[in-house]
């Protein structure tokens, strides 16, 4: 598919890399010549220097052959303008705009319909939603939801002395009596898709699929306290923090925000009267102590500087036992960050890339079953995809153990009407089911791709 990406910031670059890796033809447009030339030297893509919201530049970059335009510049207005112009210029060109300003994003549906956009994405809001999920269930590092929240995929780090160490995957159900399915295990730099004989070790990061209730049971059984967070300390009052406030406020969580700029503080306290706004520099340890960092049950670092977020999180961990969430925007040292003692790290650019990659893959297979969700559960290595299975798909009506599947493919959950089935060998997929599949990255466009 031919895709044009306007704006080569963090999100644009991540998108270009991921979509190019999935075999699409990418053209990027940015006004900064050096950014474009760096990116085109690194990836096998085409680059144009210019303002992507102008008709001439879009023409030159080949908008008439483009199937999808993704506008992810730093400015919402520019993104919307790009999409409008592409809509007029391109032949049936679909458009996706990034809109992050809360003022517009509350009108996302209106904008989408009136401007004829295929999708409006809001990385900040998506990040806030993900943060809120892990705060609700702090035992997990990361929670992805499927089928409108009826199935969850939870990541969990096996602590020292856990009941799980030494247990084989196939024994989990029998010994613990919980209806969960272990999907993946990360050990060091390796990622495995679990089969029955896999034995857990300390410090493994495992992911399990279950309904929310069963997931809670599972964590209780393995001796993990699972109480939703009641009070949160947030550092940084940007857009993500504002979305987070709104979500947490609805859930009845008390929030304290530490923000440096007094104008932003003013704005925050007008928008969120219930939130405790502290004006000050969070890199000041005395301030953090004064505000009770050692007593907070959760700490979320959302400043614009990644390094600051990491240090603040490490400091919070060292002061007490809060649930710590760290936002990382820019820096790309995933492997190093993974070894730090951080609980949950949130990468807004990856969340966005997942959402758009799902859309692109679903576009590619307009026939067959439609892809509903896509998560990179282990970045670039393992992904989970969700499909609505249509009648006549080759996977239906056959018991899973008799299905001739590829290696490294796991049917993780079947949602039939309102019932969640954690599938065992004797279960089968029926037409109309929603199915969650865990596989190696970039394998699946359609559910039929899981067949060998």
């Amino acid at each position: 598919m031919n895709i044009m990406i306007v704006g080569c910031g963090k999100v644009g670059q991540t998108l270009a890399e991921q979509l190019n890796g999935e075999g699409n033809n990418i053209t990027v447009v940015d006004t900064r010549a050096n950014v474009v030339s760096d990116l085109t030297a690194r990836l096998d893509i085409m680059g144009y220097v210019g303002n992507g919201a102008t008709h001439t530049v879009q023409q030159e970059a080949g908008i008439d052959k483009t199937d999808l335009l993704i506008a992810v510049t730093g400015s919402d207005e520019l993104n919307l303008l790009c999409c409008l112009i592409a809509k007029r210029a391109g032949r049936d060109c679909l458009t996706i705009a990034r809109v992050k300003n809360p003022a517009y994003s509350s009108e996302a549906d209106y904008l989408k319909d009136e401007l004829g956009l295929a999708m409006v994405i809001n990385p900040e809001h998506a990040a806030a939603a993900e943060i809120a999920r892990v705060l609700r269930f702090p035992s997990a590092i990361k929670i992805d939801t499927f089928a409108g929240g009826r199935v969850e995929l939870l990541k969990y780090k096996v602590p020292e002395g856990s009941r799980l160490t030494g247990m084989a995957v196939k024994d989990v159900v029998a010994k613990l009596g919980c209806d969960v399915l272990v999907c993946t295990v990360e050990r060091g730099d390796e990622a495995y898709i679990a089969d029955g004989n896999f034995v857990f070790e300390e410090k493994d990061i495992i992911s399990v699929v279950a309904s929310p209730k069963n997931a809670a049971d599972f964590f209780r059984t393995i001796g993990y306290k699972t109480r939703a967070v009641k009070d949160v300390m947030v550092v940084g009052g940007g857009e993500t923090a504002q979305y987070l406030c709104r979500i947490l406020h609805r859930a009845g969580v008390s929030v304290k925000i530490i923000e440096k700029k007094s104008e932003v503080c003013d704005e925050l306290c007008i928008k969120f009267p219930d939130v405790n706004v502290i004006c000050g520099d969070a890199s000041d340890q005395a301030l953090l102590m004064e505000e009770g960092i050692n007593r907070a049950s959760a700490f979320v670092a959302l400043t614009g500087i990644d390094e600051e977020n990491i240090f603040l999180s490490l400091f919070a961990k060292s002061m007490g036992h809060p649930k710590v969430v760290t936002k990382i925007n820019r820096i790309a040292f995933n492997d190093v960050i993974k070894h730090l003692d951080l609980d949950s790290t949130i990468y807004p650019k990856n969340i966005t890339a997942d959402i758009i990659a799902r859309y692109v893959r679903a576009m590619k297979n307009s026939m067959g079953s439609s892809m509903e969700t896509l998560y990179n559960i282990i970045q670039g290595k393992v992904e989970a995809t969700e499909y609505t299975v249509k009648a006549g798909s080759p996977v239906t009506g056959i018991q899973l153990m008799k299905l001739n599947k590829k290696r490294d493919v796991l049917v993780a959950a079947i949602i039939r009407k309102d019932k969640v089935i954690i599938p065992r060998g004797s279960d089968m997929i029926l037409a109309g089911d929603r199915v969650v599949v865990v596989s190696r990255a970039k394998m699946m466009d359609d559910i039929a791709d899981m067949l060998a």
Partner: protein
Amino acid sequence: MNFRMIRNILGWLLLFECGFMLVPAITAIVYGESQLWYFLLTMLLCGGIGGFFAWKKPKDSALYAREGFVIVALSWIVLSLFGALPFFLSGSIPNYVDALFETVSGFTTTGASILTAVEPLPKCILMWRSFTHWVGGMGVLVFVMAFVPLSGGQNMHIMKAESPGPSVSKLVPRVRTTALILYSIYLALTFIQFILLLCGGMSVFEALTTAFGTAGTGGFGVLNDSMASYSPYIQIVVTVFMLLFSVNFSCYYLILLGRFKDAFNTEFRRFVYVVGIAILVITLNVRGTFATLGEALRHVAFTVASLISTTGFATADFNAWPELSRTLLVLIMFIGACAGSTGGGLKISRLMILLRGAANELGNLAHPRRVKRVTIDGHPVEPEVIRSVNVYMMWYVLVFVGSVILISFDDHDLVTNFTAVTATINNIGPGLNLVGPTGNFAFFSLPSKLVLIFDMLAGRLELFPMLVLFAPGTWKK
């Protein structure tokens, strides 16, 4: 330096060379020539060594600019070392360095020969000689890339290092698709010329070798007098195609897309002007030596096309023309073809950047605070491109002067030495005096031949890949 990956790519290259040799091998079968065995032997060698290295793809396939240059330079050297084997083994060229000279001359599309007579040689050897032009014209690694998925995005480093011109742009997002499009255009044009030559009464063998020589802008002929004894029709066809192959190939792509305005850009128009003016002036200058004006025009047009496209075919002995014509001809040897074509020389677009940059700097002397950017087709030229063009010019002069000095040890006259280096570094073929269209390069000493071999490779790869081989920083861990 990722040596494993370099080895892997060189392996693929040898496998492709093995495939290329099918062409002369089939020729040998058709004409029942015994040299077939030498080709089969070389193919076995290339296939064996190449297969061994290409067998396993290294885990770390990352290539950076440094590897890109080294891969391109080494590829061309390896390609030539193996390509010379059939000439040497079959005894057609008894000295290996001579065989290497001939092969390098072939792959770099120079067309300079050390052979005094080509007609007695077996057909398969002549076919291989001409086919190397076709392979080298568009770039052999571009060919490999079109078929083998080498590595992710870093292919661009290889394409940049191999393609002629000051800056390389892709036609479509993927390097592989770009390479396929370029080769399709190349193949199509070659085929059209082949058919037109057949219509002119050439034999299949002659038409093929001539088309290969023209397409790569090489210039190896199969007759001792190059193109002189062919009919005017054939000479005109070759003239037209020499010019067509010296136009930037992206022009053809844009024409196919219907974007005529973009296709006939400034570089294209300047190329047309230069060719037109050169033909006009030289025709007036040599008018007296030919029977009719039409004949003069035909020979001059052929010669100008041959030299500016850096092909090097000849229909007339331009060495005997008046001094003004000789001087102008040497000048157009330096100008060369358009960027992104199969031709050599300095390239029109590079000269445009150089001249506009120079004019700009001159203007800045009078108005020191003036801000003005060099633009081409309305687009500003990046300062890095201007800098690299200036550096290119500097190294070009250095290599040129160095080579002239080195081959002067042979004690031939200055015009011979000067034009021998001109003809090799610009990948043309014939020069003036001893290396003129009726002469050849056989009389040079062994060291001089090695210098000229280096010049041909450096000229075809646009200096930097060959020079990077000698930069100390390249090989450091």
